[in-house]
């Protein structure tokens, strides 16, 4: 279980290298450029083999039987008819060996089981089949006879704590005791305020919808298991699979080269991997088990819906005097973090703060980390409230926020941020966007334009552990070996650029091996926007280690001090006298050795400081008051993510984050049937991710590099910060356009028309 601020959990630092941390780069040659991805051709031409595309000889196809009910118990189950179906090789049910292993552990009580006869959400796993073909496996699932005892269910988190509410777990529906944080004196803060506002906000439950569905291919070789998984972290999957199957880590090899998106839903090992492993063991053959799109919608994870009540006070001069924050969320039927309070207590200066947050179980699919877990939800409430406060005291929204930019992290004992570009994001962003000039009113008075903005912070800045190996071959070409996944963010590309920067070799001469527990080194899963700040310093250190060795050999050959020498790709040159040089192929020591291996570790972060990326987003919208249609017509995202390693992949991340934010604000919402608890929109057209037509053509990014020095590449993350203030900026722009607050997202024509009708009725 994560602690209340899981990203604060202390991670033991690695032993630092004796040489200490590398100094920041001086002038950079390649880092920061716009460079296409090193694997762009493979990805767009279809040559890249994703786990979903992967096949082994003699491989079986598997499928899972799931509960069609939101809450039900298996009274009896007969697997025999399935075993007799054509092509069927292995069948597992709740009483098969291994099926009762605990899955989704709960804090103080027993959690769920791998194949659980008590199903607490639609889609819960009860049996599985492996057959020669997928249609055969699916036919066999239908042959399994299950007698269900259908139980009463609860899907509305607001009702889950009622005394009469059906119980998801015997002890009740509370996930844990509420988490409370307090500083200052709330009553005093409200007494000092000139204006106090109070509002309740609700955010939708969003589904990750990765392009590649969840799943694995598994194969046993005696006691050794190999897993080809679509995952954000091969080492995380290795750990769980080994632990659940009682295998030594060394006997579980997880490979995850390409993967088609996860957005947090593939940070952990899936039940499907272990079910596939059990089936493969029974069958004695490799097994492929991928979820269908519908299964991914139901059980692949979601961003939990949150209900947040905020009361805040402000003085006429813009001082925020008090914030009272109460948040609850539902992780579904199994535990997961649903917290939101960090941002409320840290983003803006405020002396008197109280936050309380709680989670309740419901009979619904389990939440997972989802691109900035909790942060867009918190931002939706906080930044709409800030907008309302600024309006209430007649202060410009940007000026109001600029007045309240903190230099220290109030939520973490006033430790200083290693760097903060929040003021820069606000000020430079406002300038670049043209904040302050009202958009021209359309000729048709029913069409209204408005602008809105929001600031944001992300809670994590990366850190140890990470181990990377760089190998320099005798011809000057390089092998970069790292455990990190490239989850579509361009990790491979930016890491190659770091090596290129350090060694002077062109990116094309760098071959990358990654995301394989058998052959690459330890990395934490790619989540938390921390792959760049965690792993790029280790990559740089490994390259620097190679360089040091080569320069030492060259120094002996040139009879010059190593400190005077520079490695420029295939040559070592004297900085003092460029005529003194030697080709690396001509260094005898290197030729004898043929290969230089550099090892790099991630140094610890500085003590007593915190690392956070920041952002400010600016939106212009057009609202049709006749139909409730909202069009985002212009968008600017200002991001402080430290140094940008590749402006092209950076922009990709920011645009992607904004698109996600548009989905959160405008279109995406899981819909459960109140009569059965079943998900109604578990498909691509009823669950509405934004299309190209929902995204403004006029979209810009602005880099606000606050020159962070917490690590040797001066980087913070961007993937998550780029989606945190998006929805709130849009909601604030909608308010600016039509004067109604859409506190409950997403801003659909339905919600907007209902609010506009109420506004009209009020007159």
């Amino acid at each position, binding site marked *: 279980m994560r602690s209340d601020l899981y990203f604060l959990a202390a991670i033991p630092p690695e032993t630092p290298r004796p040489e200490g941390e590398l100094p920041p780069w001086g002038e950079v040659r390649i880092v920061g450029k716009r460079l296409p991805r090193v694997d762009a051709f493979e990805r767009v031409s279809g040559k890249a083999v994703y786990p979903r595309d992967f096949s082994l000889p003699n491989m079986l196809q598997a499928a899972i039987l799931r509960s069609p009910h939101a809450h039900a118990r298996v009274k009896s189950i007969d697997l025999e008819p399935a075993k007799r179906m054509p092509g069927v090789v292995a069948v597992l049910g709740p009483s098969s060996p291994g099926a009762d292993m605990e899955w989704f552990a709960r804090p103080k009580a027993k959690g769920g089981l791998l194949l659980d006869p008590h199903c607490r959400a639609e889609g819960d796993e009860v049996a599985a089949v492996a057959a020669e073909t997928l249609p055969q496996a699916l036919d066999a699932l239908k042959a399994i006879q299950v007698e269900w005892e259908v139980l009463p269910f609860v899907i509305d988190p607001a009702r889950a704590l009622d005394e009469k509410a059906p119980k998801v777990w015997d002890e009740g529906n509370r996930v844990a005791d509420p988490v409370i944080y307090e500083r200052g004196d709330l009553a005093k803060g409200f007494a000092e305020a000139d204006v106090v506002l109070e509002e309740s906000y609700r955010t939708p439950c969003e589904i990750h919808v990765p392009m590649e569905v969840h799943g694995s291919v598994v194969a046993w070789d005696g006691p050794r298991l190999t897993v080809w998984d679509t995952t954000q972290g091969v080492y995380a999957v290795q750990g769980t699979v080994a632990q659940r199957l009682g295998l030594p880590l060394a006997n579980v090899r997880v490979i995850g080269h390409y993967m088609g998106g996860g957005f947090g839903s593939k940070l952990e090992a899936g039940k499907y991997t272990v079910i596939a492993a059990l089936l493969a063991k029974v069958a004695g053959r490799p097994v492929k088990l991928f979820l269908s799109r519908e299964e991914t919608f139901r059980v692949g994870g979601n961003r939990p819906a949150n209900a947040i009540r905020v009361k805040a006070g402000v003085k006429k001069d813009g001082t925020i005097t008090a914030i009272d924050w109460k948040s609850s969320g539902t992780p579904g039927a199994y535990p997961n973090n649903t917290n939101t309070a960090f941002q409320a207590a840290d983003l803006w200066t405020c002396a008197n703060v109280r936050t309380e947050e709680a989670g309740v179980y419901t009979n619904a699919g389990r939440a997972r980390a989802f691109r900035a877990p909790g942060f867009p939800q918190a931002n939706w409430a906080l930044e709409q409230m800030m907008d309302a406060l600024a309006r209430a005291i007649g202060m410009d929204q940007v000026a109001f926020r600029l007045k309240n930019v903190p230099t220290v992290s109030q939520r973490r004992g006033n430790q200083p941020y290693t760097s903060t570009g929040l003021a820069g994001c606000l000020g430079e962003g406002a300038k670049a966007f043209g904040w302050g000039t009202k958009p021209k009113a359309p000729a048709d008075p029913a069409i209204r334009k408005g602008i809105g903005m929001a600031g944001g912070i992300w809670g994590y800045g990366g850190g140890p552990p990470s181990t990377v190996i760089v190998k320099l071959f005798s011809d000057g070409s390089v092998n970069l070996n790292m455990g990190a996944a490239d989850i579509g963010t361009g990790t491979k590309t930016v890491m190659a650029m770091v090596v290129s920067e350090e060694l002077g070799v062109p990116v094309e001469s760098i071959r990358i091996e990654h995301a394989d527990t058998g052959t690459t080194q330890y990395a934490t899963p790619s989540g938390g926007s921390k792959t760049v700040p965690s792993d790029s310093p280790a990559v740089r250190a490994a390259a620097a280690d190679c360089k040091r060795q080569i320069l030492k050999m060259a120094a002996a050959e040139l009879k010059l001090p190593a400190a005077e020498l520079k490695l420029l790709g295939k040559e070592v040159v004297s900085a003092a006298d460029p005529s003194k040089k030697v080709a690396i192929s001509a260094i005898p020591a290197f030729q004898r050795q043929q290969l230089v291996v550099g090892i790099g570790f991630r140094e610890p972060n500085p003590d007593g400081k915190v690392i956070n990326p920041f952002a400010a987003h600016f939106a212009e919208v057009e609202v049709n008051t006749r139909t409730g249609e909202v069009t985002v017509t212009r968008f600017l995202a200002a991001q402080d993510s430290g140094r940008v390693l590749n402006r092209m992949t950076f922009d990709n991340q920011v645009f992607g984050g904004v698109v996600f934010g548009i989905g959160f604000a405008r279109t995406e919402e899981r819909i459960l049937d109140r*009569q059965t608890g079943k998900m109604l929109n578990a498909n691509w057209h009823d669950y509405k991710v934004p*299309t190209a037509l929902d995204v403004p053509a006029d979209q810009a990014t602005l880099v606000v590099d606050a020159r962070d020095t917490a690590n040797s590449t001066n980087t913070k993350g961007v993937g998550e910060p780029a989606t945190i203030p998006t929805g709130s900026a849009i909601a604030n722009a909608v308010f600016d356009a039509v004067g109604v607050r859409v506190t409950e997202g997403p801003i659909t024509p339905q919600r907007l028309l209902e609010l506009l*009708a109420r506004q009209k009725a009020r007159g």
Partner: protein
Amino acid sequence: MISSFTYARPKTLQEAVELLAKPGARAHAGGTDLLGCLRDEVFSAEKVVSLSGLSELKTIVPSPLGLHVGALTTLAQVASYKPISGMYRALAEGAAAAASPQLRNQGTLGGNLCQRPRCWYFRGEFSCLRKGGETCYAYDGENQYHSLFGPGPCFIVHPSDTASPLVALEAKFRIAGPAGTRTVDAEAFFVLPDAEVQKENVLKAGEILTEVFLPAQAGLLSTYRKVRSRGAWDFALAGAAVALVVAGGKVAKARVVLSGVAPVPWRAKKAEEALTGKALDPAVIRAAAEAATAGAQPMSGNAYKVDLLRGAVEEALRAIA
């Protein structure tokens, strides 16, 4: 999962009709709706009869009386064919507003008119009335996308974006079947659930929609306004097809046909009355838009559609005026 079926690709209409008259046979035009229904087990097929060999159903033939559009014409062709986008703009706009470019390239006009409803209970694992079950789940359930008009007991909205324009344009549908061919008004093609809850149109076993005929009308102006929650790949929350014959600055004849709010393309006759004989000024437009909502009976979750509908009709009329 799609259960197994046999497949036939007849060369003649006669052959196709014979194959389709057999129980369990299903017509396959572009397949964009059919395959989804089979995969989601909304219904099954024993034999899938492809219409793709019937080249006579793929032509668009102008005549002095109007335009004959073959049922296998793709939505993309309908949207871009000049005589349609000129004279019958509402149809071109309806076709262009349907689905996505990929689906419009593959999906046909006939298939669009015969597609099954998108009610999420009907498409999901629910045995509702329309699937031969006992109850309508939408009635007490999640009905934000359901109908405002119609007698029940099923509350689907007709999913087609070409159906309302065609009713507005007074199109005629030609049908071939075991008993020969017949022609019905577009309006009469669609059936309400109180008549037959498991069907959306008058087609009987073995019958194929072969052609849509658009009659020429002097002074005809038309448009289609669709409102949806995202920019593409989304069915109508509500829409309005308007076709007017304007003479001497006045509306001589009006058809206002709503989409997304009823189990069939829904004629807003009160709105038509409010327009006939009037000049299209803002007050008349507003009155007609208001009149279009007359008789709406919102369910628990779709009252917003009344406002939305008024807005869609107003915008359609403004676009013509």
